[in-house]
């Protein structure tokens, strides 16, 4: 396994996430796709840390922070989703059309 393998997997993961975030209609699905994108970044950081800068901690530190922040982000997102679901009764983005112009 070389660095290129890890980077390829991460890039693939990022693209899958990007595609999902842009095409999904269900908010839970979009959230999951965004998580994939965050994890692609984490994989990149860990791989660079291991292969290019062994002994360095900056990449791992950043990955730890990313994991934490992504979790916090999901918490806020699900809370907002719950609030909007109570009112609108749907989790599909195309049904949220009060605001336009």
């Amino acid at each position, binding site marked *: 396994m070389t660095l290129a393998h890890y980077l390829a997997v991460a890039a693939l993961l990022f693209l899958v996430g990007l595609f999902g975030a842009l095409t999904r209609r269900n908010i839970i699905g979009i*959230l999951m796709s965004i998580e994939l*994108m965050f994890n692609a*970044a984490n994989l990149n950081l860990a791989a*660079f*840390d291991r292969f290019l800068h062994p002994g360095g901690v900056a990449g791992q530190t950043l990955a730890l922070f990313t994991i934490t922040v992504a979790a916090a*982000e999901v918490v806020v997102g699900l*809370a907002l989703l719950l609030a909007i679901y109570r009112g609108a009764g749907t989790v599909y983005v195309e049904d949220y059309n*009060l*605001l336009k112009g």
Partner: protein
Amino acid sequence: MLNLSLLTPALALAGLALLILLADMLLPRGRERWLAHLAWISCAGVLCLLVRGLGDPAALGRGTLWTVDPFSQFFQTATVLAAMLCLLLSLDYRDLPRRQAGSFSALMLLSVSGLMLLTAAHDLLLIFISLELVSLSSFILAGFERSHPKSNEGAMKYFLFGAFASAVMVYGISLYYGAAGTTRLDAGAPPDPLLILSLLLILLGFGFKASLAPMHFWVPDAYEGAPTPVTAFLSIAPKIATFALLLRVYGAFFPAGRYGLQALLGLLAALTMTIGNFTAFFQNDVKRLLAYSSIAQAGYLMIGLAVGTPLGLQGAMFYSFVYAAMNVGCFAVVQAVGREGGYGLDAFNGLAKRSLGLSLAMAFCLLSLAGIPPLAGFIGKLYIFAAAVESGQYALAVIGVLNSVASVYYYFRIAQRMFLREAKGEPAALAVGPYVYGSLAAAVAGVLLLGVHPEPLIAGVRASARLLP
């Protein structure tokens, strides 16, 4: 060197936010309003702390992840000032859930302390964390009127775009780490393709916060749905702090000229101005109209960055300070009018008969946004366009001037309704709270004084346009 003491103002504000959260649990019911007062007083205190440190060599220096230089002090002062005025506005805003005044104030303060860290950060780790601190608190603030479907929807759209942009940005940061071997921005990495790609992805994340053109779709929805004081806050504080960050990263650490990004930044500036202004023509909701106007204003600020000269830097700094005053003024009036009549343009019909002072204040702020002399906005635009001409970027200057001319149309649409149209029925006097008057007075005083007598601010900007390496 750790030098944590450099961040005292930001950390003090964060500490006060946590204190407010704690006090929220201990205070008896019905006293939550004290916390809202405590919030703006904390902002005022931190502002005093910041102003005392201006030009004080002991307050400047480098830490492990942060650099406090005159430049960051300038933007911190502007951000805290704007946030204080928005907190004052929120004291007179009726639709916020009363019982949650404590968490509202705490979130505002946390967001401001994130912005203060952002202006001083020189490491992508701190940039990422403070940007997320700002984003997460603003997502919640935008959806604070939970019983209001529009507020929920605006917050949801804001959240989806925000999370997407920060995921792309983090991927960019991970590539930067691979290319430069560190998350520090001052590594002086050579412009190889991987680094350029990472800089582009990071720009996308920053551009989302600063509402630059291809990343601006959330702006009108979030601004229309959010409670008005929060809209005022979102349109000012995160935008100017992100511009400080953009100026630091793409102006000082990675000069756009050396990394071949100059054309892209110019294109973004032109696109942002044009899309903002030309979409604003067709809006019938004041908050939405001002949202598009704020996108256009971000475009003017972007010219200062795209030019990349010291004069452009000073222009962007001057304009962001003035922009804060103009937008606080506009949103104060919008809040006062919207309390009874809603946020449609029709609510402004015959406002001059109901409250001449309010309509004059609104007119001054709008004319200043349009860049009409002798108001502050004119001096700011002059500064920026002069920088573009001086560096030979005539195309940007011409597009900027054409855009300001076009923008006069939609700003005058509001003015025309206030002064020339009749309100439906008998014009009733408008009830305006004392805090709205207070922050409106401060904003209008800024717009007028900086217009006729801009020298003190220009001198301040010149002294502050100094970035430590």
